[in-house]
């Protein structure tokens, strides 16, 4: 519990910094309310990261398709495609559980956007690629293991 409190304190501090940056005109806030979450992108575990972006408590679902190689020779570039079969998807997050900072990216889907995202991520070591989709107020997740021969973080 003490740990959670620490994380929470850190989060509120970070949020303060962001709002200062916005008022100073350093960051232009977009029309979408969601901002880059420092807590989530610095969280060291998958659960903490998901909590940071408000996608915790995901239920496993096979409607989420993750296209990723079974074996990635170069962990610096692992192509990943996530698509979801459910209607009304609002957000997609891609995490690499073996990384120092598991949350690689978080996508907020705007009006008319399909639940489809394709990108390339870095993977430090063999681990699960976790895709989390928020649709209709519910959170779903799926994962796929990717074996990494040469890590892509640090060095």
């Amino acid at each position: 519990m003490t740990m959670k409190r620490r994380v929470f304190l850190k989060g509120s501090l970070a949020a303060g910094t962001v709002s200062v940056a916005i008022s100073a005109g350093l960051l232009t806030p977009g029309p979408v309310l969601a901002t880059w979450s420092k807590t989530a992108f610095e969280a060291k575990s998958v659960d903490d990261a998901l909590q940071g972006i408000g996608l915790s408590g995901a239920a496993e679902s096979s409607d989420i398709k993750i296209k990723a190689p079974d074996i990635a020779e170069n962990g610096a570039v692992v192509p990943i495609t996530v698509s979801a079969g459910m209607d009304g998807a609002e957000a997609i997050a891609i995490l690499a559980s073996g990384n120092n900072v598991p949350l690689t990216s978080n996508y907020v889907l705007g009006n008319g956007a399909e639940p489809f995202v394709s990108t390339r991520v870095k993977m430090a070591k063999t681990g699960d690629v976790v895709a989390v989709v928020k649709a209709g107020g519910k959170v779903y997740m799926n994962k796929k293991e990717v074996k990494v021969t040469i890590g892509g973080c640090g060095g």
Partner: protein
Amino acid sequence: MAKKSIKVRAKAKGDMTTVKCLISHPMETGLRKDKKTGQVIPAHFVQEVIGTHNGNTVMTAHWSGGISKNPYLSFKFAGAKKGDTLNISWTDNKGAGDSLDATIK
């Protein structure tokens, strides 16, 4: 921005538009060390990528250093037609950024 840092290809097929974009950026995680000096290379990565069509934000991507160097992003959205303009813009953690208007083909 001296050089164009974004490459976008947007293709409309029926009602669905597929967007593929490449951004040139070093994407340093802040964990890597310089081999010669042993110094840690400071984090430098794209934090936010936004795709806008007709004033409607179709995609907001938040990234960490866990995205590969010279990042690639592809997404799909409905409601655009050929000849429309799609704007892609990015901002990194040092406050730099770029934006580009692309025509949907």
